């Protein structure tokens, strides 16, 4: 198996496995990215094993303790107004938030790939339509759209995922389009075309693999953006259905009691901010790993 890398147009034939190994080495050399990745893996594990780690059921009220401080009454981070354990809810909330963000981003990316490649590579009508759609989409009242989705699909995790994906695929499609426009003028693509390679072949064998870096970077930024969007929906009252927690709804719920028990908003916000930061740094690392010019 061979692949061509984008190093300024000169085609290099190299072994793919060692290429991945090299990328990994480059990524590893960025210590911050590595630590961030470790942190994200830790978060993912915490979320995945929330059921094992959480000391309490996240949704069962305990009316004897309401809005308690951290480290009191056996609650690591205190309790919310219903006496539910904040730490346990944080774990489950993290799980919900990560699931929603990842799924929404994947959905948006899939959509963006199809449209972006079509617009960038083939140009013409699709391209013009995509560009015109951008202005229209940005001006669209997101609130109403989310309400309709929630009405049609019911207030489920999926309607939230869809609302976020619909809101974010377009910018990503534009990004991929730009990448396609840039790559298709490169010599080796021209060469491939002159040698009679079909469009599909060119896209699948040359353009997409060479866009992998930017696409991964987009994704690593898209996930925290989706997390933000989820908390935005929560503010509008269109977030995850109670009693289930997500980071977004925990932050909005915590705001109600911000003057009574600030811990309630601090911890979910802290985890949320750290996760966003980690995604950003991992994205940095990924870009370096895919872009050998830095060496």
């Amino acid at each position, binding site marked *: 198996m061979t692949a061509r890398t984008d190093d300024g147009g000169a085609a290099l034939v190299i072994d793919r496995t060692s290429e991945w190994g090299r990328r990994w080495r480059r990524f590893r050399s960025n210590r911050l990215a590595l630590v961030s990745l470790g942190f994200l893996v830790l978060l993912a594990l915490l979320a995945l094993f929330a059921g094992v780690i959480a000391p309490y059921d996240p949704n069962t009220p305990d009316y004897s303790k309401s809005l308690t401080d951290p480290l009191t009454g056996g609650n690591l981070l205190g309790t919310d107004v219903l006496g539910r354990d904040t730490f346990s809810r944080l774990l489950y909330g993290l799980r919900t938030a990560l699931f929603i963000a990842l799924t929404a981003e994947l959905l948006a990316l899939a959509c963006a790939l199809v449209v972006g490649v079509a617009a960038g590579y083939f140009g013409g009508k699709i391209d013009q339509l995509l560009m015109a759609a951008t202005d229209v989409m940005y001006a669209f009242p997101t609130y109403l759209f989310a*309400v309709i989705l929630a*009405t049609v699909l019911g207030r489920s995790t999926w309607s939230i995922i869809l609302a976020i994906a619909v809101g974010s695929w377009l910018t990503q499609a534009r990004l991929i389009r730009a990448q396609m426009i840039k790559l298709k003028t490169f010599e080796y693509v021209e060469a491939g075309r002159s040698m009679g390679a079909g469009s599909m072949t060119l896209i699948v064998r040359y353009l997409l693999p060479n866009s992998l870096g930017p696409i991964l970077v987009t994704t690593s930024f898209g996930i925290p953006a989706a997390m933000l969007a989820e908390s935005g929906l929560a503010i509008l009252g269109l977030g995850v259905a109670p009693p289930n927690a997500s980071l977004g709804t925990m932050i909005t719920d915590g705001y109600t009691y911000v003057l009574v028990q600030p811990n309630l908003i601090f911890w979910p916000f802290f985890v949320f901010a750290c996760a966003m930061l980690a995604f950003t740094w991992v994205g940095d690392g990924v870009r370096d790993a895919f872009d050998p010019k830095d060496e």
Partner: protein
Amino acid sequence: MIRYSTPGARHRRLAVAAFAVAVTLAATSCSFSDNPDKESGAQVLKLAVGAPIDSLDPHFINNGGYVVPAGLLEGLVAQNDAGDDVVPAIATKWEQSADGLTYTFTLREDAKFSNGEPITAESVVSNYRRLLTPTGAGGGSVTNANSYQIGLGIKNASAYQTGALTDWADVGISAPDDSTVVISLDAPNPDFLLGMTNNSMLITDTAAIEANPKDWTKAENWVGSGAFTVKSWDPSTGMKLVPNKFYWDRDKVELDEVDIRVIQDPQAAILAYRNGELDVSPVSMDLISKDDKLLGETEKADGFAIDFLNVQYSQNPAAQDQRVRQALSYAIDRDKLAGVQVGTTTSNSLVPTRVEGWTDSMGVSVYDPDKAKQLLVEAGYPGGEGLPAVQVFDHRPRPVADAIVDMWKQIGVEAKVTIVDIGVWADTRWKVLDEDLMGFYINSFGGIPTLNNWVYTYWGPDSTKQFSLAPADWNRYQEIQADEKLDGAKKSQMLDNILNTKSSEGAQEFADLVEQARQTVDPAERTALYVEAATLRESLALQIPLLEEPQAFLVDPTVKGVHVRTTIEGFYYKGVTVG
């Protein structure tokens, strides 16, 4: 493609940025409202309202209700400090006929609008005519829902408003001479005088409205009847009021200005109060539950509102089984709910405990999980077996709903909270649910503390009959309501027919009791009948009472004369003094 940046270019850019900031600052400053007056010795009451003051038209439901009755408009009568009786306002005296059906008001001679024009009996009548005109004689081209309170029971008012009657002469409002207004009722109404203090019944100057049909609420055109008049008004930031110099009781108005600030964020309002920027601010006590100083400065009127669950129609027969609904009510531990929402108290009845005539016998909605389980067994759903999922239908997250669902789960019922956007909620709460779901929507009603209000106006005979209808009959009812081809009178008759023949026995019995009570003039007898009716209604469990909410304000200790009442506006600005 490589550009050079010279030092000169850099300075130019900085200059551009600085210019942009300067221009925008200038642009912004144009939109600032005028600076607060700092006259020495002037008494300025600074207070907050929690919603944009979207309109000042009292004839439609809007947020004007938070400020208009407090000082901008006055009615024939006004409330006393406790809010349980009335005192003279535009009318100096009134007489009630022996049958309790006719009230004759005598207007004061020196009653004037804020432009100096006298308030005559004709002003009063034309004002009520505008209120009851079915198409809405409102300011703009489109207007809000009409604000007339049906519970007031003015003769033929509802019929005129729905279009069933078209001759204004049939409505029981008339002005035999310049200083007399006569209002007759369908049935005796002990709350009538208190009801006349509602925002909808206050007196606007219809001549001023006709002069400026679209802009009459703007500050420069405003003509009111209250102790204050509008100095400036911006819906989203607030308004400033100054005393109405033509007001008949000008001497009692101590304040030189009322400065109302719209603060929609409740936390921000608390912080502004704490910072000394506000003298008075509405407050939800659970937001300050650990701040003893602020709690100490809270003035409240208890029993302002009742939070309740209202049954939703469902194809599943369980929703129509009284025992199931009772079981769900018995399963709710209201003490714990009150703990969750600090500041509220438990409510075992749909009638607030402060209402005169309230007796323990009405408090049938109590916590009794054993009885709840037993009722489920009797209804054929032992341990919740066979019941559809039960939902609490809401339009915003609220911890109390989560707690209720948890309590229902304790008796084996599968339960959940369903939250939808407010528009969806308003649109679908009366829709018939599918077989696999039953539920209750959560809501609050608030108002004056009288039996008539809480037994007849709220969840009264018609509403109780409606909610006891089987799904098919309810759908038929709605079809008739939506049928544009039917004229008003015919429609009313068909709707009444459904209510009287298809509603449950209990609902009809309740309706008869309420009707009896309304026709009774003797206060003690009437109270007894209302209590009996209320007790019966609670046992139907079409509505499940949850909590009583107070009307609460943070009031700076230097401010005197804030008498918090159980009305939307909370208190009158008239007798208030600062410092």
